[in-house]
């Protein structure tokens, strides 16, 4: 049986894969993180045996494959008037309780086949960047710096300057009509003028002169690549800012076989069976690895490239279930 772990809000990658599981009549069930606290179903987790009993049925024996799709999110428990610092404390403590429970559950299910493994879902950008470098992939020079002098020195070392982006992730901040967000930002005079001599440690990366960007969905040795080609001569540093521009064109793309082999080796080395990989093809023909997101969105490249990635994922889950599970289709 295939277990789908996700959350109850709209998640664009989940339902299209379930469409295909339904089409193939694959045995699956879905648990959203909210289900754990919804108090609608009886369940228990035997910590010693590692079994999970839901409505009297032991699912720990039934589950073979886990489609792990953005399961964890912070839950809000408070209703009515907020209590300031007190509610903030309750919020963190309640989420910590749940997080520890979930971690123990994942540990009990560690022998199942995960897509992808839960420990790798929140990849650490600096760690992945270092791993890519060690694996021999070309990647932009990266530094975490907390002072302007050090930043200026680093910028001098980079022939085309540098950019800054968050070390982890900065999300959307919505205030009614307007929503604020961040992108990779070129470190130019405007940016430098806004920085004090010392600041919160920030990630800086060498700017690479891109001919175009290549977005790759990786699935256990298979590559589904799409090139994002900008016809705008003043292209933006962060491609996300150009997604809705007419000047950005998408094309299906074949990576060179040696590049695929290198990326495949890297993904296996870091323990990822899947991921959305961002590459830059430079004007002098080299491929730079930027980052990998183990739970990246695949709807757009699937659609643009005609790859039917959702179907491929469903087929992968079914194949693993049939190879290792008791309930086959």
């Amino acid at each position, binding site marked *: 049986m295939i277990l789908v772990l996700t959350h109850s*809000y709209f998640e664009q990658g989940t339902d299209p894969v379930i469409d295909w599981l339904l089409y193939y009549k694959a045995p699956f069930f879905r648990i959203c993180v909210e289900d754990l606290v919804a108090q609608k179903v009886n369940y228990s987790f035997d910590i010693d045996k590692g079994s999970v009993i839901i409505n009297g049925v032991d699912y720990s024996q039934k589950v073979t494959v886990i489609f792990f799709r953005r399961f964890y999110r912070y839950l809000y428990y408070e209703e009515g008037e907020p209590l300031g610092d007190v509610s903030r404390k309750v919020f963190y403590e309640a989420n910590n309780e749940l997080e520890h429970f979930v971690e123990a559950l994942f540990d009990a299910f560690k022998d199942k086949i995960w897509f992808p493994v839960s420990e790798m879902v929140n990849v650490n950008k600096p760690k992945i960047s270092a791993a890519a470098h060690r694996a021999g992939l070309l990647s932009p020079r990266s530094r975490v710096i907390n002072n302007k002098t050090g930043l200026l020195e680093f910028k001098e070392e980079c022939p085309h300057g540098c950019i800054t982006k968050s070390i982890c992730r900065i999300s959307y901040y919505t205030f009614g009509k307007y929503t*604020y967000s961040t992108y990779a930002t070129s470190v130019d005079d405007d940016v430098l003028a806004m920085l004090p001599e010392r600041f919160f440690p920030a990630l800086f990366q060498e700017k690479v002169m891109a001919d175009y960007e290549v977005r790759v969905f990786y699935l256990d040795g298979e590559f589904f690549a799409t090139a994002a080609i900008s016809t705008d001569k003043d292209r933006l540093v962060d491609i996300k800012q150009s997604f809705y521009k007419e000047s950005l064109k998408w094309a299906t793309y074949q990576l060179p076989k040696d590049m695929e082999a290198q990326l495949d080796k890297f993904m296996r080395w870091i323990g990822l069976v899947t991921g959305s990989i961002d590459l830059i093809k430079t004007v002098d023909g080299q491929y730079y690895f930027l980052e990998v997101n183990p739970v990246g969105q695949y709807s757009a490249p699937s659609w643009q490239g005609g790859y039917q990635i*959702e179907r491929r994922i469903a087929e992968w889950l079914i194949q693993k279930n049939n190879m290792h599970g008791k309930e086959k289709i």
Partner: protein
Amino acid sequence: MEKKKFDTPFARKLLERVPINYRFMYANITEHIGELRMREKFSRSDKHRAEQYLNYPLAKPVSNFIIRKDNDK
């Protein structure tokens, strides 16, 4: 051309103590941000066990049809 005018909703005092990226934010009209799905209406689907099911395709597996030229006739 790259927008140079950053816009942050946060106070200067806070910005001095948090990651620098909060200084370099862009303001966009909330409804125009596709990822926030503000304009979309959701349904539910028991088959998918989904409380927020999108009724139109983003990238649904809608076809395996091969359209040939003679189909147009």
